[in-house]
């Protein structure tokens, strides 16, 4: 047995726990800054001095990156930098909106099921298990292809509903691990109401894992929206989104590499930042890893 494992065993036998979590580190804050910058750009895109993302300049078609066009222009002469900034709006709105729906419904149900247990929990968990078996992306493609005309609102609703079972499962597992702790039992014995126990005892203790999963969930939804946009099932052009920009670049790959490159880069960097922040928060608060 390694020294480290032995140390841990001795410490836990003595009831001493090491200070949990690793430090957040510099890269964590760089990622937070990057996400903040993207969100800022998405919110204030029309106040920023950017060229109109929808109107092209036919004298400058497929221009490479330069002073006049930071990221170059696309095949219709539209400024790619401006389109990438405006495109972040769709991705971020869908990402946050859908996960808010997922958390709004899935999280309270998950907490309640883990706290109450019994038949309520058994039935709900089976239902969620059944829904989880349905591959989310295929269900989303199916519903969006029939539920026409497509709009941002419908996309958010469909992905949001599809995310409920996953949120439910993560929150339920997290709540289960704290619901049997001594302080919860102590609160119960003292006659605290269910509402108080749920809000004051359980919620703060599952908050780190919820926040961490929220961020990773946003990243997952943005990936999914990108896939839908790539297949032409998200918001209609000319409204830019990272996914449909990559889709438009598909046909002109040989003429203009930059059109595919910049939205891809923007998307990947944003996803890496979100995933990293989520991952770091989880390990910082040293929550036992929930298997997804």
């Amino acid at each position: 047995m390694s020294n480290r494992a032995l140390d841990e065993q001795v410490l836990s036998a003595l009831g001493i726990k090491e200070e949990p979590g690793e430090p957040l580190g510099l890269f964590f804050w760089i990622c937070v800054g990057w996400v903040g910058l993207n969100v800022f750009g998405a919110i204030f895109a029309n106040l920023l001095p950017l060229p109109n993302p929808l109107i092209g300049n036919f004298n400058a078609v497929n221009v490479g990156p330069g002073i006049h066009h930071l990221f170059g222009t696309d095949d219709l002469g539209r400024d790619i930098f401006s389109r990438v900034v405006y495109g972040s709006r769709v991705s971020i709105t869908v990402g946050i909106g859908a996960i808010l729906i997922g958390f709004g419904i899935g999280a309270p149900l998950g907490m309640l099921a883990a706290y109450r247990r019994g038949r309520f929990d058994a039935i709900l968990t089976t239902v969620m298990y059944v829904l989880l078996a349905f591959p989310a992306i295929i269900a989303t493609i199916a519903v969006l292809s029939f539920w026409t005309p497509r709009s941002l609102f419908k996309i958010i609703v469909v992905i949001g509903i599809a995310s409920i079972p996953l949120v439910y499962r993560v929150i339920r597992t997290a709540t289960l691990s704290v619901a049997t702790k001594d302080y919860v039992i102590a609160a119960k014995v003292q006659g605290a109401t269910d509402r108080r126990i749920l809000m004051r005892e359980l919620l703060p203790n599952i908050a780190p894992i919820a926040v961490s999963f929220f961020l990773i969930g946003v990243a997952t939804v943005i990936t999914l929206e990108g896939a839908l946009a790539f297949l032409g099932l998200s918001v209609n052009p000319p409204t830019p989104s990272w996914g449909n920009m990559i889709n438009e670049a598909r046909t002109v790959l040989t003429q203009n590499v930059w059109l595919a490159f910049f939205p891809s880069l923007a998307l990947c960097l944003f996803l890496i930042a979100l995933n990293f922040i989520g991952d770091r928060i989880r390990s910082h608060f040293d929550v036992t890893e929930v298997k997804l």
Partner: protein
Amino acid sequence: MLRYLTKRLMLLVGIVFVISVGSFYLIHLLPGNPATVILGFGATPEAKAILYKQLGLSKPIYLQYFVWLGNILHGNLGISFISQTKVSSVIRSALPIDAEIIIISQIMAFAAAIPTAMRSARKPDGIIDRVLGATSFTLLSIPPYILIVVLVLFVSIKLGVSATGPSAYVSFGTDWITNLESLSLPAVTLATVSYVVYYRVLRSDLIATLQEEFITMARSKGLSQRRIMWRHAFRPSSVALLGAASVNIGGLLAAGFVVQYLLQIPGLGYTLILAINESDFLVVQGIVLTVSVLVVAINFFFDFIVNIVDPRISRE
């Protein structure tokens, strides 16, 4: 074991039921009369009669479901009103392509994930583990639709490797070498997506397994590192790997859709997107139903295998 399997089988039936109701109801999400939307305004009365019979449209909605289900159970998924071919034969010609891509990709993913995860687990936090960890974390954030664009840009456009670009697909029967070439980029993309998952799952499970007492026992018997890794650590950890593979299969099919769409490979995904764009709704419905049932069946099958590898699970 038997009780466990019966329980799982009942769950499977429940899931398939939900899927069938969902797929059935899709048609009714369409705005307006399904027959008009599916066939268009210029449809002949004969075509309408066939569709009414297929979908039972003149009956109340819950009876429509049973009419539809009865047809499905007889293998009748309807007729595509664009190409005038049976939906079932459309699916039968597209499905093997998906299967081929996925099988090749899985062989590559396992071949890469098992040795690298073992290497990482042997010295957690060592240099190799850190490099692999950072690489897999980055790859985790790169969606398949970006990966395939990058691969096409480099391999088929920049390096000019033949038969890897868009619409290069030929069937396996015609020319199997060109066939494999045309499927190589999709397979690499799916393999990368799966590799990341398998590597991470197997690494953390192996690290946990290596702390077990039977490993210490094997070490003290003086067994070789290789034998301990493969014989004593990998076998229990392979359960986690199979579980990951099972969960992965739905996402893999979806990633396959995206990849086929870019390269115009006539698998289920490309067929599905074409059908959506042409409003060929019965084809869309048929593919959605087939793929969903397939995913669930594969999950069930993996569950069964996991039970054989590790009988402790069914005894819980």
